[in-house]
């Protein structure tokens, strides 16, 4: 359990220096190690946001489980959403190593105090969205998480290694759906192009604002919680994804998109950050629906959780009586 300090107290500069030196030497920080309070808080923030994103991210995709057009697709999608629940659970457990309680983190989400990835505030409108989310959203998440797998905090890094393996599978599954639709009937082609048009820009926004605008970036980079800037990661994603779109004859909704011969990079046009900030502020198309769904599940599950606790308490009491 990390040490806690009275408000206003300052940390021992020698300990802070030793911590910074460990980070600089590329050492992994473990739960029992001393860490600056700021570091701990940043990690709780990042890990809980990440866990919330996995859990809220189940909703837009779960929206299509009951309508998946073949048994194979139904199983594939259900398994993917189940994986996301598993990721959420795993990262919540990782965050608990920093001395916070999962129930408290969940409460922050339900109260609207905690953030989650804005991409999940967009609606899933056709079956093609399921393919495109796997391809673009999971693809962007992998670019982010591959770097987070080298983060300085051990439990987070290890969670990312495990999660990335599954996300890679999700991305392949998504791209396979996309390429099947792109090679399908005219209606299927139109459906998948429409989904790409709707998801492309929000996917680019997943990396967050440019680092000059990103309030947490500098500190997180110095502490090696982040290892690459938002813009670098976004560029990596664009470079990976544009050739994949070309391969299945889909267009991306960016008239300014061009290939730079000198750097062999795909340069995208300007991102509408006003839209991003609006969605973060709670004014995206589905912010309310997502939180309402989480609150309803939580509220309707109260009696179930209470029953489980009461039963467990009774069993413990019985065992204690039997042992006495």
């Amino acid at each position, binding site marked *: 359990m990390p040490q806690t300090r009275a408000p206003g107290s300052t940390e021992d500069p020698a300990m802070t220096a030793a911590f910074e030196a460990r980070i600089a030497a590329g050492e992994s920080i473990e739960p029992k190690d001393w860490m600056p309070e700021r570091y701990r808080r940043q990690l709780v923030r990042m890990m809980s946001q990440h866990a919330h994103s996995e*859990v809220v991210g*189940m*909703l837009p995709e*779960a929206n299509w*489980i*009951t*309508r*998946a*057009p*073949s*048994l*194979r*697709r*139904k*199983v594939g999608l*259900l*398994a993917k*959403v*189940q994986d996301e*629940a*598993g990721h*959420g*659970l795993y990262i*919540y457990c990782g965050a608990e190593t920093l001395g916070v309680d999962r129930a408290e983190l969940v409460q922050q989400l339900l109260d609207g105090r905690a953030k989650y990835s804005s991409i999940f505030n967009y609606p899933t409108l056709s*079956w093609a969205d399921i393919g495109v989310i796997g391809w673009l959203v999971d693809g962007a998440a992998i670019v982010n998480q591959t770097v987070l797998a080298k983060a300085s905090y051990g439990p987070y890094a290890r969670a990312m290694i495990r999660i990335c393996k599954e996300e890679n599978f999700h991305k392949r599954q998504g791209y396979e*759906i996309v390429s*099947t*639709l792109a090679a*399908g*009937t005219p*209606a*299927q082609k139109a459906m998948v192009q429409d989904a790409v048009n709707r998801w492309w820009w929000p996917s680019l926004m997943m990396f967050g604002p440019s680092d000059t605008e990103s309030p947490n970036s500098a500190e997180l980079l110095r502490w090696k919680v982040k290892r690459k800037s938002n813009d670098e990661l976004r560029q990596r994603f664009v470079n990976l994804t544009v050739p994949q779109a070309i391969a299945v004859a889909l267009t991306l909704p960016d008239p300014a998109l061009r290939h730079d011969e000198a750097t062999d990079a795909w340069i995208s046009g300007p991102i509408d950050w006003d839209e991003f900030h609006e969605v973060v502020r709670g004014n995206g198309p589905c912010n309310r629906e997502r939180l309402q*769904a989480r609150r*309803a*599940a939580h509220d*309707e*599950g*109260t*009696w*179930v*959780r*209470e*029953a*489980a606790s*009461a*039963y467990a308490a*009774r069993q413990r009491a019985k065992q204690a009586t039997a042992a006495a």
Partner: protein
Amino acid sequence: MTAPSVVPAPPEAPNALFELLQRLGDDRLVLGHRLSEWCGHGPILEEDIALANIALDLIGEATMLLRLAGQVEGQGRDEDALAYLREAVDFRNCRMVELPNGDFGFTIARQFLFDVYSVVLLDALTHSAHEELAAIAAKALKEARYHVRHSGDWMLKLGDGTEESHRRVQRALDELWRFTPELFATDDIDHAMRQANIAPDLGVLHEQWEALVRDVIDRATLTLPHDVPSAPGVRGGRQGFHTEHLGHLLAEMQIVARSHPGAKW
């Protein structure tokens, strides 16, 4: 996929094995579909995972059973054609599995009653004279044993949990009980399959089932409803006589597949 069956069935005796495989497959397809509706909305994250797991098993079993059904029928229908292009009256699942999920207590009580049924039935089917069916049953039995541990465990927690959970799960049990005779009602299909040593005597299974159910119900401090209506002659889901809920479930399940005839996914 082929066109939906809108033509009246021929008057001669239906292919009994095809009927049996649809009954087994449709139970699991429809219940798996219902369970999948919980995904993202469970009372606790661990249950989202557990219910999705069980749904995945059931839909996987349904896929194997309906694939075999299509082969037995010999009309070129595969598992997707059977799942997505049949009408409600062509489905052969029992009615219990198509009921809406209700609250978590209703979902668990239904699951428990079905899981016990599944264990005793699949156990018997592992001795089926039909080798492929016996092999599917052996695989599914392992899964069903895990399922019944999960649902039985929750019956104990809810039955012997709080006053509210007890009341809710007892109400679910009372509501579901009238759908249980259908699980063991026999018709010409069952007689034919028993004669051929392909399927067991459902009457014998009924006793096994009730003993296992009663054991958990007692330990959960719940009461087994006793006003069981008699089953003989009652038409139910096995004959395509469903509740009104199945049509809505299928409308949702089949909408994309049916909107794009001939498309590949």
